């Protein structure tokens, strides 16, 4: 007998103990069960978690993957990163829409299916990619489009679709200490625990915060190794990990959290996906090392909604670690060393990669970056001291715990210890994951990936830097080009204006909307790029881009707004002719299509005489 909606909802609510902090998971699972989040469902959820209804609606309305109206039993979202564009996603999407008789963004009349675009799903090395009911499908082709449309029309459940479609390849092309490590689960932890001297080992793992203080050197010995290693955050900003951990460890309060940022939303980045696929133990082990060091009992992995398919495998790894005594109470038999990890799934919001927005989201709220200070290390999740690190940072920390800070520091460059995973995509023969010691040049990476006729590389995603061919001697390192990992390659056949336009659309879609300059500015930039791209631009519009950018860079609330103009400013500097060749003239052009604005009146009056038209240019 089918379960009633009430039952389904209650099951979900019970699973999350009617706890508002778990609202994201409640909303997701409810939507998975009921298809969409109706006003009545929102009311019921709000009531059961004891939140104002409007606040629940506010959370549900913030994330792209939650919908407050039915979006069809099949929802197909085409990843719309520039790399998908280069692989022809738009034509394929249009073909799919034609087969299904619908317009992008609209639900079919029978309520069966909707097709739309979504921000980069992290499959750039095997695109064009789609999400079908939030499950990743890679390597879309015309043939797959046809088959998929047929399966949808025949209403075949997604679970019965060809399994090969859901295959996600790791494409590891070059491994180093991280990807080639052969450590067994628990090895790093054992090494960490072994760093205790005899007199210290009697102490509880977290005794430093229970009054024993300096006496408990076990955790601080690990911290010392992390500091010695000079490990810096791998999410892009490059904050020194040891300092972050130490600040959290010393922050007042008796509850601490360790959060792994796996909200890998920067277009062109997919290395965390591969780490979580191949090295989940290492990542969890790094989190556990962090927990041991700072004194946390609870950890969360914030996994981006696009990686929904990784949820069950990751849960299995967590179970295995529990069974092996590597998670839970008294880890490895050490009394008081308790730590648990839960996976929190995001729901389509790039801004949640910002650590304070991520914490807000983890608390069930809208993903709005907080005002800082206070920083998460003193007031993070639930206001408690919290360490937030990138997936790759935790993996590296596990290696350091096992092999020591000096060893790690010996790899890479002076200011950039260790290795970096690069997600290489675009115009290369061998897209995929490349791990290099810091200091590798752009040219070396291009050679390894067998790129030819390369015009530009977008490093660290749209918010990073666009590097032209005269700069290929530059190095991947904090001293030169810092990166979160994206490495998108464009050969000479590519139009760098279209690259920038795609990124402008991305930021306009992903702005959280909190502050004026970013909320409005990203849309103004998008509109200006569309105006130029559609052949109506002038020098005035280029000047406008600079003006709007300056306001955003000065006044925006967080990094998203500060960096959103980067791709435009970079390409204007390095590929200006790509803009100039599109300009209509240098003076002024109307902001809209004048003749097009008369089309409706022409149609209604049946007129088509000369006076019923306008020249778009004077």
């Amino acid at each position, binding site marked *: 007998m089918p379960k009633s909606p009430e039952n389904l909802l209650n099951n979900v609510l019970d699973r999350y103990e009617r706890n508002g902090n778990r609202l994201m998971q409640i909303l997701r699972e409810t939507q998975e069960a009921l298809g969409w989040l109706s006003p009545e469902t929102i009311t019921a959820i709000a009531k059961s978690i004891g939140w104002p209804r409007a606040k629940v609606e506010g959370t549900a309305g913030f994330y792209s993957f939650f919908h407050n109206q039915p979006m069809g039993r099949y929802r197909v979202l085409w990843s719309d990163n520039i790399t998908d564009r280069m692989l022809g996603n738009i034509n394929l999407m249009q073909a799919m829409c034609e087969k299904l008789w619908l317009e992008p963004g609209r639900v079919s009349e029978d309520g069966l299916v909707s097709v739309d675009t979504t921000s980069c799903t992290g499959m750039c090395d095997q695109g064009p990619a789609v999400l079908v009911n939030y499950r990743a499908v890679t390597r879309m082709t015309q043939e797959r489009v046809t088959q998929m449309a047929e399966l949808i029309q025949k209403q075949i459940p997604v679970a019965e679709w060809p399994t090969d479609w859901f295959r996600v390849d790791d494409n590891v092309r070059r491994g180093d200490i991280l990807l080639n490590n052969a450590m067994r689960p628990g090895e790093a932890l054992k090494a960490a625990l072994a760093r205790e001297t005899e007199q210290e080992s009697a102490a509880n793992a977290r005794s430093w915060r229970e009054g024993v203080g300096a006496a408990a050197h076990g955790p601080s010995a690990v911290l010392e190794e992390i500091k010695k290693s000079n490990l810096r955050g791998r999410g892009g900003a490059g904050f020194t990990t040891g300092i972050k951990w130490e600040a959290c460890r010393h922050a007042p309060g008796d509850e601490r959290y360790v959060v792994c940022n796996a909200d890998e939303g920067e277009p062109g980045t997919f290395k965390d996906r591969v780490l979580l696929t191949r090295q989940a133990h290492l990542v969890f082990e790094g989190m556990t090392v962090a927990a041991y060091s700072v004194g946390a009992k609870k950890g969360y992995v914030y996994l981006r909604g696009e990686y929904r398919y990784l949820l069950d495998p990751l849960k299995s790894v967590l179970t295995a670690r529990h069974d092996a005594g590597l998670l839970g109470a008294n880890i490895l038999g050490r009394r008081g060393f308790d730590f648990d990890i839960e996976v929190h799934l995001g729901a389509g919001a790039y801004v949640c990669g910002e650590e304070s927005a991520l914490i807000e989201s983890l608390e069930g709220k809208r993903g709005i970056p907080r005002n800082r200070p206070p920083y998460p290390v003193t007031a993070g999740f639930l206001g408690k001291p919290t360490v937030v690190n990138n997936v790759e940072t935790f993996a590296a920390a596990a290696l350091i715990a096992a092999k020591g800070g000096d060893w790690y520091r010996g790899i890479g460059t002076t200011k950039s210890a260790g290795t970096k995973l690069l997600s290489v995509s675009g115009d290369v023969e061998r897209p995929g994951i490349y791990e290099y010691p810091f200091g590798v040049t752009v040219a070396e990476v291009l050679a390894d990936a067998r790129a030819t006729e390369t015009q530009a590389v977008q490093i660290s995603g749209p918010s990073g830097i666009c590097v032209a061919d005269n700069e290929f001697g530059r190095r991947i390192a904090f001293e030169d080009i810092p990166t979160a990992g994206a490495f998108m390659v464009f050969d000479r056949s590519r139009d760098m204006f279209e690259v920038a336009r795609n990124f402008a659309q991305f930021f306009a879609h992903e702005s959280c909307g909190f502050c004026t300059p970013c909320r409005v500015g990203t849309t103004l930039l998008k509109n200006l790029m569309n105006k130029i791209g559609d052949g109506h631009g002038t020098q*005035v519009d280029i000047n406008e881009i600079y003006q709007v950018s300056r306001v955003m860079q000065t006044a925006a609330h967080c990094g998203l707004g500060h960096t959103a103009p980067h791709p435009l400013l970079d390409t204007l500097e390095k590929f200006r002719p790509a803009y100039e060749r599109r300009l209509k003239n240098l003076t002024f052009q*109307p902001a809209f299509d004048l003749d097009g604005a008369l089309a409706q*009146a022409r149609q209604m009056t049946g007129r088509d005489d000369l006076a019923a038209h306008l020249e778009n240019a004077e």
Partner: protein
Amino acid sequence: MNAPNRKLRVATTSLAGCFGCHMSFLDIDERILKLVELVEFDRSPITDIKHCGPCDLGLIEGGVCNAENVHVLREFRANCKILVALGACAVNGGLPAQRNHLDLRDILEEVYETEGGLARGSKIPNDPELPLPLDKVHPIHEVVKIDYYLPGCPPPADAIWKFLTDLIAGRTPVMGHGLLHYD
């Protein structure tokens, strides 16, 4: 060195406006006698000249709601060295732009076909003499380049006077408290 003392040539028009800004202009009252010593009028409701010749200054009241507005605005832009958006409608579309959230189809049908009181069989007029409406009403700066803005519904006569005398005297017009308002 003296500034050129020839009279400035000024043109004015009202597009999608109510002529309220022109009325306000006339509210400068007797100062208009002083003004005609400094300027001469080209195309304007004051002169009834039908087309604009080369001018120093063009004052545009009203936004752009139809094809004719576009032609007139372009004529002014082609002939006026300085073009001024005069009043709320020219500046941001004003009252006429409040139709912008409605579909033009619904508006035309309502006005010409379905509203009560219309003669039987009323149709949307299709006389080529009539300018076609744009699907939205736009501020004039979205159609041509505008050099100065003087908001207000209407801008007060004192503001118009201040603006013109500043401009004639070669000063960048600055509207202080009481002269700059949007309503």
